[in-house]
């Protein structure tokens, strides 16, 4: 890793003092990021203005001094998965490769507020994955053992300890799915997902990166024949852009975008639904996950309970919630915490997940020279935002694939080197 250059001063540094000054003087606020003219050429074009695209742009500029970068989004920044996920962070994965990767991400998240001068409100209040049968208890132990060996804080705890951490959980043996134990991961927690997006956008813009919202990529120009294709640029609904490096960070739409460059990816897109309740007085510190009941629960600082589940059973691009989803969800939540029956569900929504066969991402170079991917993020993309941005920026700047993402190359599917994160990623929020 090259040494970090001194970050340039942001146009407006945030602090309690600056708020105080603004409050007293009533002066105009400075935009968090600037609107720029769309140029017809950039060194690097990043498709997708979510956390992955913006983090990549930020680290390209901050770590490598590459600032002739455009981030394009067909909507507003963070309008895709980055604004629709349930904002849970953790690193208690199953494979050593996965644990190392997500551990780096958690560590970057821990210092992100200071790095970006933007409070992303990372709240490390602990993460519990419940085991309702002996086989999931065995998987929890497996994860705990691998985590410990990789230096990540994880342990298997019993029902008494669980009750202490989450008093509202029903840990009695009399229920349909008794809680036999849990994987407890103290550094896990939740974050303000939009703030991460905005912080990266502001940081990148401060270094001179262009962020173009409402700019949809309609094609990718690729030159060359069968033994040597190279990317030339992208076409958008606002004009063509030349670029020698194009990075696909479009998650749920990643196969459609890759197809524009003639690259086929082993990815299917599935909807994933989530829901949130009205605020109630905070009572739940930890994130609680139950794989058997297909549900996870956390409580935001605003008091809302945020619920998620596993992906919908059928592939598709629909982002509409279903009634069956909230019915099943409510049943499972009450199975865990029966006293929440009178809490009201406020809103339900859906996002898109780009699922790979082995529940691990696809990152790095593709058969088309200069066309890179950072995709296949399934249900775990938000957790990996910083480390992915850092590694993809490294990859572009040095021309070499960093070790930390080497296992995630697209060639693994042709070489039979799949990574098995299914056990830790399926409903593992």
């Amino acid at each position, binding site marked *: 890793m090259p040494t970090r250059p001194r970050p340039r001063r942001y146009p407006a540094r*945030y*602090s309690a003092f*600056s*708020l*105080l000054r603004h*409050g007293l003087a009533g002066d105009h*606020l400075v935009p*968090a990021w600037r609107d720029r003219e769309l140029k017809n050429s950039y060194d690097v074009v990043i498709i997708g203005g979510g956390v992955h695209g913006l983090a990549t742009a930020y680290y390209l500029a901050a770590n490598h001094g590459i600032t002739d970068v455009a981030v394009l989004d067909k909507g507003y920044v*963070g*309008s895709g998965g980055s604004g629709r996920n349930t904002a849970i962070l953790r690193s208690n994965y199953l494979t*050593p490769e996965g644990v190392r990767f997500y551990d780096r991400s958690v560590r970057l998240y821990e210092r992100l*507020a*200071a790095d970006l*001068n933007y*409070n992303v*409100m990372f709240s490390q209040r602990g993460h519990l994955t419940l085991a309702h*049968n002996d*086989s999931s208890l*065995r*998987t929890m*132990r*497996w994860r705990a*053992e691998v985590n*410990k*060996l990789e230096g990540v804080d994880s342990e298997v705890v019993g029902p008494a300890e669980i009750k202490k951490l989450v*008093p509202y959980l029903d840990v009695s043996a009399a229920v349909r*799915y008794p809680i036999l134990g849990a994987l407890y991961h103290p550094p896990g927690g939740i974050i303000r997902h*939009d*703030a991460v997006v*905005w912080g990266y956008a502001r940081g990148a813009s401060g270094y001179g990166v262009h962020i173009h*919202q409402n700019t949809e990529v309609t094609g990718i120009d690729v030159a060359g024949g069968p033994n040597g294709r190279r990317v030339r640029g992208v076409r958008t609904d606002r004009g063509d852009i030349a670029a020698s490096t194009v990075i696909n960070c479009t998650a749920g739409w990643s196969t459609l975008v890759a197809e524009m460059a003639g690259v086929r990816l082993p990815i299917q897109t599935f909807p994933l639904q989530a829901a949130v*309740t*009205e*605020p*109630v*007085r905070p009572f739940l510190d930890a994130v609680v996950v139950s794989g058997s009941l297909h549900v996870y629960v956390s409580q935001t600082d*605003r*008091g809302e309970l945020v619920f998620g589940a596993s992906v919908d059973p059928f592939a598709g691009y629909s982002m*509409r*919630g*279903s*009634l069956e989803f*909230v019915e099943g*969800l*409510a*049943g499972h939540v*009450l*199975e865990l915490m029966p*006293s929440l*029956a*009178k809490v*009201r*569900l*406020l*809103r*339900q929504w859906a996002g898109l997940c780009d699922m790979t066969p*082995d529940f691990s991402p696809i990152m790095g170079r593709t058969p088309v020279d200069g066309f890179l991917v950072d995709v296949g993020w399934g249900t775990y993309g938000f957790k990996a935002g910083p480390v992915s941005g850092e590694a993809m920026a490294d990859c572009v700047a040095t021309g070499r694939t960093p070790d930390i993402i080497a296992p995630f190359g697209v060639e693994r599917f042709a070489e*039979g080197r*799949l*990574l098995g994160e299914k056990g830790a990623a399926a409903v593992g929020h």
Partner: protein
Amino acid sequence: MSMRLGPQPGEVLDRTRPFTFTWNGREVPAYQGDTIASALAAAGVRVFSRSLKYHRPRGLLTASFHDPGCIVQVDDEPNVRGAHRLARPGMRVRSQNTWPSLNFDVKAINQLAGRFLSAGFYYKTFIRPRWLWPTYERVLRRFANGGEVPPEAAGDYYDKRYAHPEVLVAGGGPAGMAAALAAADAGASVLLVEEEHQLGGHLCWGDEADLAALRGLSERVAAAPGIEVLCDSAVLGRYEGNWIAVVQRTVPGVAERLVKVRAGTLVVASGLIERPYVFAGNDIPGVMLSTAVRRLINLYAVKPGERAVVLTGNGDGDAAVADLKRAGVTVAHIADARLGDDIVRAHGRGRLRSVELPDGRRVDCDLLVTATGWTAPAALLTMAGDRPVYDPRAARYFPDPARLPEDVLAAGGIAGDGSLDELLAHADAVGAEAARRATGAGDGPVPIPTLPVDAHPALFRGRTHGIVDFCEDVSSTDLVQAVEEGYRSVELVKRYTTVTMGPTQGKLEAVNAVAIVAEATGRSIGETGTTTWRPPYVPVTLGALAGRVFEPVRYSPMQPWHEAHGATPLVAGAWIRPDHYGDPHAEARTVRGDVGIIDVTPIGKLDLRGPDVPKLLNLLYVNKWSKLDVGRVRYGVMCADDGVVLDDGVTGHLGPDHYLMSTTSSGAATVWEWVENWLQTQHPDWQVHVTPLTTAYASMNVAGPRSRELLERVTEGVDLAGEAFPYMNVRTGRVCGVDDCVLWRIGFTGELSYELHIPAAYGLHVWETLMERGHDLGIAPFGVEAQRILRLEKGHLIVGQDTDGLTRGFSAGLDWAIKLDKDDFVGKPELAWQQEAGEYPRLVGLQPLDGSVVPEEACQIVDPPRRADRRPRIVGRVTSSRMSPILGRSICLAQVDAHLAAPGTQVTVRLPDGRHIPARVTDHLAHFDPTGDRLRV
């Protein structure tokens, strides 16, 4: 001071039934029919809650379900809509999130800091030092605005119901009632859903003519045969195919009921919601909407104040003036927005003192009424695909009928303006057309008249800034700041300021927010767009969504016997089965020494018939199936497309074109789906008929050296002699007097054993008979735990335990079964590839050198680091481990990297406490009887 008026013509109170309830510990009188808020307002209460950020006192704003100022705690129920929930005798009502009391709240100090707590202030502060953030966060969490949830469940009863009306009418105002009547007249069955406690909508708080019209409509609805009315119920969402969720709160004994409706057509007659006006001081208690005062006076006989200022832009504001005068309120000033009048700000702390006019005059008052326009609650229409269009002349959004699907129509105020007669005529046509579309009856489309659209002054924000979102305490200044900071899209403004994200979900504030963002960005309201309406339309309890929790449990027919004999239950997916009967080691020894019997009913069983079954077996199993004679069974392994082990089991050839396939217990459903998927999508031409028989048979395994002796006593029609019925064969016959039993001679436990599949109804009989007849042979039942010990001694793998989501066939030690010379089978390319590449992890038998140590399952096998500061490298893991009673030592199965798989290799196992112990790879997977002599006797 009582604000209760004398009897009103349209009041919903039953004055013969007075009672009391408590408000923050104080007794409050009420009548039957009062809402919590109306009773409190009648008792002179003006402050009901404190706002989220600044803890400013909040009073009534809309006096309806959506009132953000009156959300209260009722007993153990948080966030109750106090302006909608009926008061009940003895109920304990408290204000939420106030300390030490509602009237003196310490956190109101935030008002002084208000100018520093601008939009998103928390993103800009508490950044350094990092270690202080958890402390800041604890403080922030104390500001979370909501009621309290009890730690113990109250045990309320919730229910669900399905309904299949031809027409569902959402909204029971005049238009909804007219549409329902017309649909019923046209012969359709109608479900009419109304949010309030009674039908009528705005007619309820109208004048004599309105009340007369209401009486007429109500009588006709009550008399109409095809209309079912649900009051105090709300349509929550419209999903694909007119699948509609309704929450009903009026079923006796049921807290809430979710009605799931498949409607032919949906008529949205939701009316309009009055929009607040944004100006300085617009959240001071005493500032109300015109509909709020009309409700208070006419429905609840409550005098909303003593001296009022009214800002009116429409006829409803004028009607409010008339109501106020009739109720004895002094109307000190009327500002008519149609004539360009306005108000500038409201003054007062805790209660309204005066209103400032544009000319600088201050009018003393304790009530300010605004009538500044309407919001179309278009949620249901947008869920059906509509994109409402903004009409600047009317200053509100209208549905775009072109975007609505055939099965959704709009009626009433949401569709246009007009006199009551015009609206009724329109709704009448819509109702008839809805019936026609649902039933197909009638002679062609019913012509629907076009409703007029009245001009209305565009009143969103006055010349001062004020609160836009009352739930979230978001002001218009916050929105303007967000735009200044670059959050220009209305979605970004929403996310940055949290405007429209509170309990009202934008019903009151969305259009004002859009108007202010439009103003700040220099765009028009139409260009600015709106935020997305998402279900549910109103918040709904988790209890109602969940209904009665129904998690089915599966038991075998022998369950009563297990319970009577002290079995410890084991939850295994949908099944509950005996884990053991007290001493699993003793149970295992009985099987090795005499005879044991285990209930294996959960094993998946598929009956396969047809000439193409062998093709199917050859496709799905990795081994060969063409030459399996009638009477034989074979062990088979299935792999998925990626070569990963999916399931295993035995399949027997019972007769011509007739096979019985067994699967693992946990894989029963998956394999059935897998089989059907291949047949239906890839080989629809194959003649194979699949019937799942898992629960049609009670299955039990009789295992142990004396099992043959036992079965000979109870079996008829089957020669059990070793040479007549050898290992890996199947017979059908009569067991304990029961015909059509299937007997397989197989041996998961490694002993001579027979698996019996008995027609389920006779399972218990056969089990009890076997126990009785085997008494002298030493028979004892054994559970899952003893079976796990026995199979581990024998080295038989369990799919999903000794294999995982990445274990391909050769890694599971199945080299002997995988036949790459077969034409094709699922997973073949991957397995061929795996074999060619070599160097794959392998399943091996493993024994700790110290036989008294049993490493827990999932312990990692590591390559110990040569230097202390390095981490050990993972080279495998223990997949199964037990203490073997017959060998008197610990035994394991393990997945290890290729270079460690040779028998005799010594490896290092890391225990959970961090200790490292040595273990040795054994010669065979089987720790006991590796040659299988005991199976074949």
